[in-house]
C-alpha cells in the first residue's frame, strides 16, 4: 500500500526512463519535504527516482559572471562554495540560513526550486536575481517558472538540471523566521542584477513568491534603505495564520526589505 521502488540512475536518460515507467513516479532530489510527507502517508509515490548520483548534477561553476549551480547541489555545498561566494555572496548567505545543518546537508537547490514551497528561501533569490531554471528539455526564466503555491512551469517528467545566475551588482537576503519551523515567515531578497532592481518576497504570499513593485520602483530611483521609508507593502494577497497575520507580514516585508538593502 505504501511500498516504493527506489531508483538511483546515473544519467538523465535513465532518470527519465524511470520516471516514465513508474505508475506514479517522483523525483527525489534531497527529500527534505518529500520524505516527511511520505512518512505521514500524505504522499505514496510508486517510484522514487534519486537524481543525486547523476554525473555533473551537483557541480557548481562560473563562466565569467554567470554562475551555474547543479540541481543536486546541497544547501551546504552552495553555502560553502568559493565560486558562489565570489559571484553571488548573497546566495551563499541565503543557503547558509536554510533550515538546520541536517537539512542543509541533504536538501538541494533543485529540490527546493521545484517544490516551490511558499515559505522556501531559494525562490525569492531566483526571482530577484532573474535566474534561469535549466531543465533536461529547456531553459525557463524565474519569472515564468514560479506559478503559485507548490506550482511551477515544470512538465511531468521534466527534470531541473541546474540554475543559472548572472552576478548582480548588489544583492542581499533578509529572513524573518517563523518561530517554530524556522521557514521564512517573511523573506525578502533584494538585487540589482540581470533583471534590474528587484525585490522578491517569500513566506508571505498566498500564491508563493512574488515581486514587490512599489519597493522596486523606489530602489530603482535610489538604492538605499531610506528610499523605502513610507513605502508600505500591501496586505492584499498575503497569508494569515497563527504565526503572522497579513498586516504583520506586510509590516515585516518593509522591515526586512530595508535590512536587506542595508546589508547588500
Amino acid at each position: 500500500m505504501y511500498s516504493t521502488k527506489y531508483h538511483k540512475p546515473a544519467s538523465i536518460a535513465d532518470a527519465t526512463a524511470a520516471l516514465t515507467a513508474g505508475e506514479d513516479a517522483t523525483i527525489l532530489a534531497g527529500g527534505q519535504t518529500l520524505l516527511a510527507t511520505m512518512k505521514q502517508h500524505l504522499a505514496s509515490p510508486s517510484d522514487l527516482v534519486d537524481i543525486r548520483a547523476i554525473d555533473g548534477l551537483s557541480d557548481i561553476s562560473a563562466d565569467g559572471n554567470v554562475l551555474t549551480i547543479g540541481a543536486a547541489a546541497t544547501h551546504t555545498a552552495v553555502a560553502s562554495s568559493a565560486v558562489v561566494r565570489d559571484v553571488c555572496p548573497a546566495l551563499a548567505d541565503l543557503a547558509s540560513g536554510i533550515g538546520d545543518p541536517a537539512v542543509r546537508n541533504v536538501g538541494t537547490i533543485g529540490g527546493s526550486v521545484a517544490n516551490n514551497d511558499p515559505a522556501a528561501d531559494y525562490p525569492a533569490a531566483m526571482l530577484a536575481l532573474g535566474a534561469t531554471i535549466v531543465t533536461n528539455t529547456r531553459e525557463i526564466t524565474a519569472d515564468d517558472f514560479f506559478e503559485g503555491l507548490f506550482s511551477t512551469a515544470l512538465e511531468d517528467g521534466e527534470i531541473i538540471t541546474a540554475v543559472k545566475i548572472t552576478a548582480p551588482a548588489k544583492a542581499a537576503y533578509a529572513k524573518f523566521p517563523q518561530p517554530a519551523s524556522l521557514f521564512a515567515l517573511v523573506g525578502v531578497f533584494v538585487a540589482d542584477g540581470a533583471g534590474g532592481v528587484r525585490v522578491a518576497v517569500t513566506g508571505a504570499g498566498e500564491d508563493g513568491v512574488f515581486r514587490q513593485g512599489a519597493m522596486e520602483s523606489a530602489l530603482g530611483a535610489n538604492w538605499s534603505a531610506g528610499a523605502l521609508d513610507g513605502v508600505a507593502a500591501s496586505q492584499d494577497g498575503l497569508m494569515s495564520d497563527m504565526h503572522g497575520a497579513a498586516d504583520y507580514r506586510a509590516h515585516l516585508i518593509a522591515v526586512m526589505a530595508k535590512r536587506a538593502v542595508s546589508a547588500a
Partner: protein
Amino acid sequence: MSTGIGARVKRKEDKRFTTGKGKYTDDIRNDNQAYAAFVRSTHAHANIKGIDASAALAMDGVIEVLDGHQLTGDGIGNIICGWAVTSKDGSPMNMGAWSALATSKARYVGDAIAVVIAETQAQARIAAEAVVVDYEELPAIAHVMKAMAEDAPNIHENAPGNLIYDWELGDEALADAGLASATHITTLDLTNNRLSPNPMEPRVAIATYDDAEEHYTLHTTSQNPHVARLLLSAFYQVAPENKLRVIAPDVGGGFGAKIYVYPEEITCLWASMRTNRSIKWTSDRSEAFLTDAHGRDHVTTAKMGFDDNHKIVGFKVDTVANLGAYMSLFSSSVPTYLYATLLSGQYNIQNLHCNVRTYYTNTVPVDAYRGAGRPEATYVMERMMETAARELDMDPAELRRINFIQTFPHQTPMLMAYDAGDFPKILEMAQDAADIAGFAARKTEAAGRGKLRGIGYSTFIEACGLAPSQAAGSLGAGVGLWESAEVRVNPVGSIEILTGSHSHGQGHETTFAQIVADRFDIPIESVSIVHGDTDKVQFGMGTYGSRSAPVGMSAVVKAMDKVEAKVKKIAAHTLEAAEEDIVIEGGQVKVAGTDKAMGWHEVGLAAYIAHNLPEGMEPGLKETAFFDPVNFSFPSGAFICEVEVDPDTGVTEIIKFTAADDFGTIINPMIVEGQVHGGVTQGIGQALLEQVVYDDDGQLLTGSYMDYTMPRAADIPFFDVSHHETPSPNNPLGVKGCGEAGAIGSPPAVINAITDAIGNNNLAMPATPQAVWRAIQATKSVAAE
C-alpha cells in the same frame, strides 16, 4: 573529593546515557512480540455509529482489531480522576465516563476508538488507517470560554453546561471588604497558555501476558510504576496486583505527562491477554501532541487592592480552567489545591479569595505539567505585583519588600503553613547578581542601538512534596502521598537503596547515593539505587511535584536511621563498648576516642554470618521505612529577567536571567543548577514560544514542531544561578525540592521584563514577535491620542 551532601558529584547514570547504553522501554523486544496501532478520532466531537474493521482484518500481518465494546464487555473499568473536588454548593465534581477505547462517542481529536494488533509496527499502522469509523459529527468546543455558553454543545451527559465544578478557597466577604477599603486597585485579565509537555522520549508500553501464570508484565514510560499498578488493578480491573508487574526502566523525561495511566497502557494489557501475544505500542511525536496530557490553560481575572502604605489589603481571583475532554488523574487538583493555595505568594495577605470553575472541552485532557498549578498562581501574583508597582509609580522590588512575609512559620488564609524562608535576602541576592544599579545605563545604551530594554521580577513561593497524607485525603486526594525506602547493606558492606521515587532524568542514582555515602562515610561507588520495578520495590508513590528529595530521600534517611542503630548495636557488642560511644566514620565503625574499630564491611559480614550478634537480634542488615511528611516544603526564589525588544519586529532577546533560589539543603549543586536551567528554559518557552492551538472545530493546529515552538539553545541565555539555604524543618535533610521552581517562577519575570521594555502591561503569553509588535503598536496609538 567529597561525594557527600553538597558535593558536585558527576552523575553516575550519565555514562550509560551518553554512550547510548541506556535501556528505554522501546529498546525492549520480547519473544512473541506483536505491535499495536490505535484508530483515533479525526473529529473533535462525534457520535460513533459503527466501526468496520473487515478491510483491516484482511491485511497482511493483522492479528486482531479490538474496540471499546469488547473492552468494556471484558470488564475493563473506566479511567478515573483520583482527586475528588467538591463544588462550593456541596455537590461532587461531575466526572464523565472515560473508556480506554471510546464506545459511543469521541470527544477529542485523537480519542482512541479501536486498536489494531499486527506482526509489525508498520503493518499495524497501515491497517489502522483501513479501519472505517462511521461518525456522526457534533458541534465541538475548543476554547474554555465557549464551553460555558448557554448554547454550547454538551460533552458529558452528567455535566450540564460542561461544568465540572465551581469551587472556592478563602473568604470572599473579607476580600471584598479589603478591596472596598483600598486606595488603589490593580485589575488584570490574564491567560495562562496551554502547553504540550514534549518529553524527549515519547510514551511507550509493552504488555506481556503469561497465560500459564495468568500474569501480566507492563514495561512502560511511567514516573510512578506502583501508582500505575494500583490503578490498573484496583480501578481498571486489568489484573490483581499480585498478577501484575509494572516496570518503568530508563525513562527520558516526564514533566508530569508520564504520571498518568493512559488508554494505551490499559488497552495493550487487555489486548495481550486477548491475543496471547506481547503487545508493543510506541507513540510517535504526532500521537504525543494528540494524546499526552496538556498543561495550564487558565483564563483569570484578578483584582488586588492596596492601602496608603502600599500594603495589600485585598486580593480576589476568578479563574476558569480547561480540563479537556475527560478528567485525567490529578486534573481536578491542579487548578484548585495546587493553585489557589499558592495565591498568597511571598506576601502577607489576609483578605484573599479565589473562585475556580473548570469545564470540559473537546481537547486533550489537561493535567499536571512541570509546576502544576503553581506556575499559574505565580503568574497571576507576579504580574499583579509588577503592574501594581507601575501604577503606583513604585520600585517593583520595594512594593514586594513592603508586603513580604518576614517570620516563619507563616499561616496563609489559603490552607498553607509556610515552613521557612528569607524573602528579602534572596531578592537582594538576585538584585546584586542582576546589577540592578546599572540597569538605567544599559537601557540608555540599548536605546542608542534602537532597542527597548526592560527588566522584570518574579519573587515566588511554591509547595513541594504534597503532604501529609491525612491532610491530602481530607481535601479529596484518593491516595496517600508518602514515600517508602529500603536500605540493604550487603555482607560485603555495599548498599542497595530501593526507593519508590522514580528517576526519569533527575539523577537519583547520584543524589540518593550521595546521602548514603555521606551518612555512612563510604565510597559512593559502593551505593546502588534500585527503582522503577514493582517486583523489586515494595511500594512507592513515584516522582512528581518535586517530591523525590523532600519525601523520597527522607524515607531513605529514616531507613538509614534504623540501619545505623543496628550497626551500632552490633559494633558495641563486638567491640565491647557502649552503643552511644560508637561512631561511623572513614569506612569504619569505631569506639570514639579509642583505636578500637571494625571496618564497615566487617559489621555487614557480622550481621549476615550471625555467629556473634547481641542476644535476641535478628540476622541481616536491611531496613525499611515509610516517610509521610508533616507538611509540604516551600521552596522560594527571586528571578530577574532582562530583555531587549526590537521595536521593528517585536523580537525579544533575553539578555540575562538571574535566579536566586532557596531550596533548603542542597544535595548536589550541579544537579540543582541543571534543574533550574531546565525549569527556567521551559518557563521561557511558555513565556515566549509555546502555545497549543486548536481551531474552532477542535482540530489541533500545533500538531508538530513545524507549528509548536520549543525553546532552542539560541533562545536561551546563560543563567546566573545562586542559592540561599534555609533548611525546611519538615524533613530530616532540610531539603525543599527543586525540580519545578524554574518553570514556576520564570514566566512572569520574562513578561514583566517585556512589558517594562515596551511600556504596555497588556501582553499575553506567549509573547511571540507578532504579539509584542502588536502591543507596541497599541502603545504608540495610545500615545498618539
